[in-house]
């Protein structure tokens, strides 16, 4: 029973490792056997080939005002975690659970309204 279950996990881990490793390995092998051209340029070497250009090192200081958005995000992120189990049972007892979830979301919404009113959501 246990080896069987963990065997599946082991297969998953092997696949998860192989998925990113194989393309890298293939690219390296193609380069090794001169099957692919090798002419790098700055744009090609960038970490991301599209989007905003990366600037400076990742050890720089981040703007502290960002924390308010981070807190807001975490609150609503956690709210969703609580709503998933609720969603699985709310069909059985429709009215009571909807009221309770509404209370829960309502309190958080009040917090959002507060943050909004206090101009915490504006980038200043």
């Amino acid at each position, binding site marked *: 029973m246990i080896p069987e279950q963990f065997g599946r996990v082991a297969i998953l881990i092997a696949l998860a490792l192989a998925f990113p490793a194989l393309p890298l390995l293939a690219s390296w092998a193609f380069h090794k056997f001169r099957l692919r051209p090798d002419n790098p340029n700055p744009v090609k070497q960038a970490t991301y080939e599209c989007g905003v250009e990366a600037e400076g090192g990742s050890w720089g200081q981040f703007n502290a005002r960002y924390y308010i958005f981070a807190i807001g995000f975490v609150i609503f992120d956690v709210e969703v975690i609580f709503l998933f189990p609720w969603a699985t049972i709310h069909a059985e007892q429709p009215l009571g659970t909807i009221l309770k979830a509404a209370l829960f979301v309502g*309190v958080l919404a*009040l917090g959002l*309204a*507060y943050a909004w*009113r206090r101009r915490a959501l504006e980038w200043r």
Partner: protein
Amino acid sequence: MSATEHLHHIGPALVLLIGSGVVFSADLVTPRRASLWGLTLVALVGGFLYALWHATSGTSGEALSGAVVVDEFGLFFAFVIIIATFAVVVASRDWADGREQAAEFYALILVSAGSMVLLAQSNDLITIFVALETTSIAQFVLAGIARDNRGAEASLKYLLTGAVSAAILLYGFAFLFGIAGTTSLAGIADFVGTADEGTRLPLMLGFVLVAAGFGFKMALVPFHGWVPDVYQGAPTPVVSFLSVASKAAGFAIVLRVFYTGLGGGGTFISDDWAVMFGVLAAASMVFGNAGALLQTDVKRLLGYSSIAQAGNIGIGLAAVAAGSTIGPAGVLFFIGTYVATNLGAFIAVIAASQRLGSDEIADYAGLIRRSPLIAVILIVCLLSLTGIPPTAGFIAKLYIFNGAIQAGETWLVGLVAVGVVNTGVSAYYYLRWMRTIVMDEPLEAWTFRPAVATQGVMMAAGLAVLVIGLMPTPLISAAQRAAAVLQ
């Protein structure tokens, strides 16, 4: 039991918590500060009436699967906490309405008070932890609500100490749960009643960690490090709330966990926690009073004085553990009088420091000529903190010391001797402050008087100190009834 009945059992706390939400919402729709103050008072009166309803309608027993219990003990503290919060809110109107964070101040005070009421009636380790953390987190924010450097430092220190204490407390709870197999206090009491000597060490490990966690709330040495800095740095109205309501709630929950859970006198573990609180009490009195001797800032002085007073209550806890029958009532009576006394002193300091613009003892010189009312209330409360008759503090100390001697242990008599010596030491710095108020020449001539509402609560606190001192019987019998339900 229906859902409404469950909610009815936590009614007083619920009224305060909902009131906090209403204050927050009101701030979003109206810019008027006066309405926030009024709403806060309405919520507190509502909570008080609900507790009164519990007391008169005979509501009692457990609810929410034994997580909370309605009994005289919880109601005693509900009344103490709500009345203290009411007085603080009335007295801090001038201070709070002048700042941008008025709504946060009122709402967080309500959250904190509501959770304390819940804490006093909680009957399960998990409820205790949740209620304790809710009240603490609100207080961390309150300490820094003025958004100045001092306040930020106080808030951060309070937060860090509080977080570490919460972790220690939880570790202790884990031991208690691990050995007793239940989080309910009644279940732990059953376990302790039937357990054998082999469980002694893990139980001790558990309750020592729990005492360390609660020691932070009670401000017992060596868990007192945050007190002077937070008392000095945080706004005075917040400090007055911390020093009365928070302390009362801390001792309430300690008494419930230790007295109900571990048992006083009879159990094999009771001698251990008696000695533990005896040591903590002696250390708190000695270090608290020694620290207070050197202070020139009134808030720091009151901070050290509150550590020393916690030591006095600690004598009561040791007596409870040693099996003194009047010990628990003594602790409750002391807390009741301490709340009235410290409230009077702090409201006088709030009123004085706003006009004096300083917290230095030297600036209180000749206060009796500049603001006679504030000076008289302050003197009455300082006399009571010292323990001089005919104030309430005298009866309270007498009651606590008497309980300790009644337990019949030699070392407890020694502890009382330490307490008496420390009363003498404390008289030095309390009387020195009083001398500055009465004898010294005022630095400036202009006189002042606080707002009418502040005068009202100040006089009420001062009168309570004197009335309890002259006529202690009603509070004593209330304390006895509250203590009787614990065992």
